[in-house]
């Protein structure tokens, strides 16, 4: 009962001046609380400055001739690209559950894919020639795209496990590079992921991406040894579907049925 009486009493008990004393006490406490908060903020700022100035960029080693090796020795993030041959139309949305297009939905299927001549991050020459007799998966990635950031390590792990069929080549084009977007520069990202396939750096206008009809990221174009487009796909592809598509490409089977 005493408690309830105390609760209803706006003066907090028998002493009508107790609230005044509390208010005076609070006024004494307030500078300490504000000062303490300011000290905490200053300490956090100091920690942030110290941590960021002492951290160094340590990336692992990369095998020679890989995209990661070229990225580790990066001298540029974009490079001039020369397109030889007719550009592909933009990829339409795939039908059904398959992430890849088929001949019934994609007018580029069966068309000749253009040859791209350009450079990698280390200025080494990179040529993507679909007519060189080797079936290819040409993969377009953007460093800032979260779907690319998720897909790249999955495929790298799959390659590192020895799953890439013999006679099939994966090549990559780093495009849509923007220094004001996350995960810049793309070379640091490629190096960090230990990405084995060769990487061509697209130019600032996305010439290579446009030549292949890119609709979004990541973007895959699969070509047979004669340079004909077999399938195209855009967006994150589950690794089992990607593996099935690459296996079908290696065997010369239709991709949509295999994926």
């Amino acid at each position: 009962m005493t408690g309830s009486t105390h609760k209803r009493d706006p003066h907090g008990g028998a002493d009508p001046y107790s609230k005044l004393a509390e208010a005076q006490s609070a006024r004494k406490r307030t500078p300490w609380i504000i000062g303490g908060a300011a000290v905490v903020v200053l300490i956090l700022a100091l920690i942030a400055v110290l941590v960021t100035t002492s951290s160094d960029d340590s990336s692992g080693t990369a095998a020679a001739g890989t995209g990661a090796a070229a990225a580790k020795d990066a001298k540029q993030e974009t490079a001039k690209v020369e397109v030889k041959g007719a550009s592909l139309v933009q990829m339409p949305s795939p039908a059904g559950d398959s992430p890849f297009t088929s001949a019934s939905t994609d007018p580029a299927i069966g068309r000749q894919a253009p040859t791209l001549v350009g450079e990698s991050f280390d200025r080494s020459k990179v040529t993507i020639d679909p007519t060189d007799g080797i079936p290819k998966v040409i993969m377009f990635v953007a460093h800032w795209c979260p779907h690319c950031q998720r897909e790249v390590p999955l495929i790298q792990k799959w390659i590192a496990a020895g799953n890439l069929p013999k006679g099939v080549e994966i090549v990559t084009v780093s495009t849509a590079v923007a220094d004001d977007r996350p995960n810049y520069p793309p070379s640091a990202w490629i190096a960090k992921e230990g990405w084995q396939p060769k990487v061509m750096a697209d130019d600032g206008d996305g010439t290579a991406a446009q030549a292949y009809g890119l609709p979004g990221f990541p973007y895959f174009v699969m070509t047979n040894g004669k340079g004909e487009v077999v399938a195209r796909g855009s967006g994150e592809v589950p690794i089992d579907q990607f593996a099935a598509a690459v296996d079908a490409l290696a065997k010369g089977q239709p991709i949509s049925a295999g994926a």
Partner: protein
Amino acid sequence: MSNDAVSLFLALLAVVGLVFVAATVVVALVARTAGLGPKLVSVRDGVEDVALPFAWAVATTCTIGSLYMSEVRHFTPCVLCWYQRICMYPLVVVLAIAALRRDRGVWRYALPLAAIGACISTYHYLHERFPDAVSTACDLNASCATVWIWELHFLSIPAMAWVGFVLIATLLLLARAADRRTPARPLHGPTNDPDPEEVPA
């Protein structure tokens, strides 16, 4: 301060904010069950005294941080970022006036904004963590799934915004609790609201 240092600083502030919110929840639970000792009561009263200025400071920090991201670092705000800005930016003005007037009744107006902002931040963070749930591909424009900043393995921009909204909400609830315990009146005139503690039982 470098850009990285600013990002880390904001993340550390968010961690301190999270710790404060967690501590407040624990103290509130203890108060409900076992009651608070005189020292904890003193600390609680002290924090409640500065709850409104601190809530204003949090809203101001979040607003400056948001403007720094877009105007200094040129991160393009996505649609969800804009919705969160709509909830956060007015709080700077509303809470400043409330802090100056010591108007603890401001929670009635500010708490809904903070709650809505926290809901949007939650959705935005989940969108970042599980981008496949909304889309499987990026278009050429900045999407809401783009993670511009990733600090301490769990803090992105919407996560920091979430902490800001929840911290403001917590401070407003503290101000509300103090308001209910001691019927304080704004310095510049009384309100017309009846005080439940003054109503006879």
